[in-house]
Every structure is written in C-alpha cells, then in structure tokens.
C-alpha cells in the first residue's frame, strides 16, 4: 500500500523534520526532507514525490504557497498537504474548503500546527489511495 511511495517533507524546523521523517517512515513510506524552499526546488529537479508536505512559513512567510505552485506546475497530480501555525498564532483561519480558497491555495489539505500525527497519517492514506 505505502510501499515505495515517496513523501517530500519541507519545514525549516529541524526538530519537526526529524520527528516527522521518523513517524512517516514508520508507516512504510520513503521520506525525503528539505529545510527551505530552494533546497526543495533543487530536490524536485530529480525527485518526483508521490506526495508533498509543506510548511507554509519558512524564510519567507509565503514559501509554502510558492512551493505548492511550483509542484503543481511540475505535476498537478501530486497531492499537497500544507501545514501552518498561522491559525494558532494569529487566529486567522484559512483552508481549502471554499471555492475562493481553492483558487489561490494550491493544496489538497491544510493542517494546523501542532499537527496530530494520527490526522496526518490518515490524510496521507486518503490522498495516496
């Protein structure tokens, strides 16, 4: 099921990367990580992930959005999970529920930080099934 599925995980928090690489690998996926947008873009020249998990705010506040657009341009069939601490920090809510959201947020799912791994796991399974 999850065999040979590659997950691209991008976040500027090295502890988050370390933890989630381990957790996602424990479910049988192959995980490649990047700590910023340019590192991820470099990886994407050779790697074609089955799914991408992107942090929204890295060096620039919109790095996740830009990266999501970039991935959609390469291959629009790669599912994207966007994770963000925006909601817990600013109270600003956004997602991909309404049609307007879907137009500019190029992601299949938006999860807020701190992420519950069970939720992330079930989204991975759903989007890759």
């Amino acid at each position, binding site marked *: 099921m999850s065999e040979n599925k590659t997950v691209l995980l991008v976040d*500027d*928090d*090295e*502890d*988050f990367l*370390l*933890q989630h690489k*381990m*957790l996602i690998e*424990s479910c049988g996926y192959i995980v490649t990580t990047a*700590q*910023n947008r340019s590192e991820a873009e470099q990886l994407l020249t050779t790697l074609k992930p089955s799914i991408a998990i992107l942090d929204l705010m890295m*060096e620039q506040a919109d790095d996740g959005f830009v990266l999501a657009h970039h991935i959609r341009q390469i291959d629009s069939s790669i599912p994207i999970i966007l994770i963000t*601490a925006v909601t817990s*920090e600013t109270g600003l809510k956004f997602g991909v529920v309404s049609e307007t959201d879907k137009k500019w947020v190029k992601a299949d799912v938006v999860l807020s*930080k*701190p992420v519950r*791994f069970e939720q992330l796991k079930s989204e991975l399974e759903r989007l890759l099934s």
Partner: protein
Amino acid sequence: MTKEKTPLKVWIVDDEPGMCLGTKRALRDHVIDMEDLNVSVNFEVNTMESGEAFLTNLKGDKPHILLLDGKLPGIDGIEVLEELAKQSTKILTIMITAYATLEKAVKATKLGAYDFLAKPFTPDELRYALKKASRDIILTERAKQLEAEKQQVRFEFISVLAHELKSPLNAIEGFADIMKGRVAGNDIEKYDHMINRMCARIGGMRKLITDLLDLTRIESGKKKRILEPINLNSSVENVIENNIGLAQKNNITVNVAPSNKCSINGDSGEIEMLLNNLITNAIKYNKPNGNVDIILKPSETTISIIVRDTGIGMSKEEQQNLFKEFSRIKNNKTKNIEGSGLGLSIIHKIIQLYNATVNVTSEVDVGSEFTIELPIQ
C-alpha cells in the same frame, strides 16, 4: 517641522443672540499656537439657543468644547449637565454664568463642568479660557494615543514571546511522543540524538527566560543598581572566560587589546551583561576558525568598546531591525545558531541607561563591528 493643524468644534448654547454672535466673532479666525506641543488650534463654532436644541444636535455630532449658559429657557444649564452625565457623554464644558451662586457652581463642578466664565467677559478672557481647555484636550488625546500604542507594542511582544516559548515545547512534546510510542524500537541508544535535541531545546528555552527576566528587570528599573568603579579590562576577561567553551566549539580565536585607564562608573552586572551579549554574538555568528577582536579605547570623556568579528555579517536590510525584540535574522547561515532574539534588545536597553551610543558596521560574509561609546561620567 510644520505644525499639526487641529480644528476643535466649539458649541455655544445661549439664549442671547448677541452673546452667541460676539463669541462667534471672537473665535473666528483665531488661531492658538502651542509651540511645545507642535500644534496650532483653530475653532469651528456652532451656536444653539436652548438646551433642548443642543441635546437634539448631540444625536448626530459632538463638540470638543461646550460653552453652556447656566440660565436658559426650558431646561437650564445644570439640567443639560445632568443629562450629559446620565448619557455618560463626556464633553469639556465651560459654564457661562451671569450671577452664579456658589451652590450652583458646586453642583456644576460635581457634574463635571471644567471651568467658569462670568458674564460679561472680554474676547481675551474667552480666548484665554479656550486656550486652557484646548491644551487639556490635546494633552488628553496624546496620552490616550500613547497608551494605545504602548498596549499594541505589549500585545505584539507577548504574541511573539508566546510563539518563542511554544515552539520548543512542541518540539520536546513531539520527541516525548515518539519515545513513548517506541517508534524507533526498544533500544534506548536509538533515541540518543532525540534526547540531545530535547536538552538543547530546553537549554534554549531557559536562555530565553533568563534574557527575558534581564530585559524586564532593566526596563522596570526595579533592579537594584550598584554603581562603582569598574575595570573594563577585567570585565572583558571574565566574560571571555565564561565563553571559552563556546569559542572552542567553533574554533574561534578571541583577541583582546586591553588598555590602561579603562575604568568607568557602572553596575558590574549590567556591564557584564552588555559585554556578554556582544561577545557571544561575535562568537556565534562567526565562521569556523574565525576571529573576534575586542578593543578598548579610552578618550577624554568616553571609553570605546569595539567588538569585531570575521563572521557572516549582515545586509543593510537585515541591520534595520537589529535592536527590536525577537528580530532574529533568519537565513540559511543562521538557521543552526541558537539565540533568544533578545540579546541586542538587552544591549540597547543598557546603552540607554548609560547614555552611551552604539554604532554598527557590517558586510555580508566579511563580518560585523559593534562600537559602544560609554561616557566615563
């Protein structure tokens, strides 16, 4: 600097048309310059013949200053004041009275009247009363603005602080969950790296709390300051000794150019806090095998402390918010450098305490130089 023009609305409520007209005339084209507040005030005057008319007009608008006749047909001045108090409407009110009784004056004052003007009054008396009132309005307005700005800054500070405290907690919790679930198996060694990361994040959090306490102690002025002659050479030596481990870890050479006559009057805790933040920054933001030079240079009235590094440097843009709380420079080169984001704010606060100045020059990939000029006093 051009003066800020502030028009103030003045409403006159008086049943004598001559009185209204005279007042209007005296205030028309009259400008009050308040040099110290950098503002010039003029008046937009409106007249009303009765208390009832005033209360009706009040539904759509509100004056800054109300000139209120005590004796009016229909409801009188005191009743108008009572109505304003009932509505909790605050308007700076000057009572105009022909034959004020003490009893009435006391009552009006209790109801919030600001001043009294006895009829008949000269245009100058009127202008003087309005000058005093305008000044109070502007000062109150400024105080309100300042308070609002302070609250906003405080709110922003707390939000960022909450974020800075929450992220290590999230990381530690994440590692703890992984260990609890034995995600890497039962072998404890598999978790060594995670345990180290947890300790590092706890250390970072402790540093943040210590820095935060230092900063608030300096800011509140509650910290007891003991001012005594301090030899800066030995303060620098102390700070370097405390940071030998950090320098060795990054293979940084720290050179000191001591100087004779390097004594200032100060609080040793504050001076070491200042030097410690400067020197640890120079070590942390350096390149491997880099140098830190610390130079003490006395002049007639000041002592310069120069801390120069051969580190990653800063762009002009990055230098802009340097002394602002939590404004850590975030890029590829700084991502593995631990810091609370408060070090330079602490430096800034201490510098203010000593009437000192700080000057920063920096070039990306070449290094930074911080020069503090401390007055000897």
